[in-house]
């Protein structure tokens, strides 16, 4: 019975703190995206050839942990199947945050575009931690000096 009590308490705490953290993160993501939208990051591999752009690799990397509530709900979804919605928002945050960090890197170089943008993800499940790493990388094009 004590086990159940602990699990229930952790789920409640996970929900309260996890939801608050998620709301705060999304707010910050949307605000920074608006600021950085003018620095275009695109998937094409062919940069415009009209300028002798300086080309540099830029990366953005983030690790976000799942909370107890999300993990618990996801494990219940595992029984019945269906969309793992608690993790969809987690992955969405991670991808957008990685992109923002990559853009911040490019902005510090004075870049105008980021080309050939790609994502890499890996799962960190050691020591019972449910966390995801997302890395965004691309080629920053900086105008010649």
């Amino acid at each position, binding site marked *: 019975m004590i086990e*159940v009590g602990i699990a229930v308490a952790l789920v409640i705490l996970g929900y309260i703190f996890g939801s608050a953290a998620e709301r705060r993160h999304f707010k910050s993501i949307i605000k920074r995206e608006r600021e950085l939208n003018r620095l275009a990051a695109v998937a094409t591999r062919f940069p415009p050839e009209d300028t002798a752009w300086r080309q540099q690799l830029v990366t953005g990397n983030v690790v976000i942990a799942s909370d107890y509530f999300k993990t618990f709900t996801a494990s219940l979804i595992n029984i019945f199947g269906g969309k793992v919605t608690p993790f969809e928002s987690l992955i969405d945050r991670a991808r957008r945050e990685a992109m923002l960090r990559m853009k911040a890197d490019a902005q510090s170089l004075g870049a105008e575009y980021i080309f050939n943008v790609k994502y890499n993800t890996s799962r960190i499940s050691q020591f019972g931690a449910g966390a995801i790493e997302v890395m965004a990388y691309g080629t920053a094009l900086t105008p010649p000096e």
Partner: protein
Amino acid sequence: MDFENRQPREGINTTREHPLKRFMILLGSAAVLVTVLVVTLQLAGGWIARKIPFRYETMAIEQTSLELGSERPPAELVAWLNQLADKVSPGLELPADIEITVNYHHENVFNAFATIGGQLVFYRGLLTQMPNENALAMVMAHEIAHVLHRDPLAGLGGGLSSMLALATLTGQGGTGAAASLLNQTGLLTGVQFTRRMENNADTAALAAVNSVYGHINGADTLFVLTGAERDDSALPQWLERFASTHPLDGDRVRAIEKMAADAGYATTGKLTPLPAEYRQWLNED
């Protein structure tokens, strides 16, 4: 060339549904699933187990090298315990093919149990606290009633199949917390069955004790004793009543009183003392 990044629209890659809504539906469905699964398996496992002829239980216990009692038990005590079993057995209308063997265990544990093959185990800890033969006869009749109802095998059949099913289900279920919660739900469902077995065994045992002694005086001694021991339970009573494998001692005492009133058993009568050498036998060990 003109490149641009537009602001991603919200609610495409994520859901707008409130997380608690889905959580509640999932939790409810999982609880229903586990309950239905365990109830079905307990019923099916118990039903199949009770269809197995008793001789297979005897064969099974003979083939295992399970040591049920102490190595060198006091012979007179074991003989007397077996005589007591023979004394109460007719009151239970035990079929001819079911043979009861009483084993003695020297540990000071307040317990007695019945297992497959008609084997009963009585612990020293329980025997030393018995004030008279009537009290012990009730415990004996209760354990024999479990054998008669085939509860040890039914419990094994229903319990084992439920355990396997839960392990498979929660193995798929991922995290420890969800697995633990589902297992607890399964256990809680399972104990509803064991409690029913206990109540049925009490009813049969009370009838047997009444037929042997002509009254049921002393039959509730065990539950009065265990009730006194467990007074300091941390759980509220309603929760303990729901979560325990056995009915609560106070409930059992009241149930005995009610059964006695319904069946017209005499609640007073002369108590039969234990044999004069009884304490000496217990101290021999």
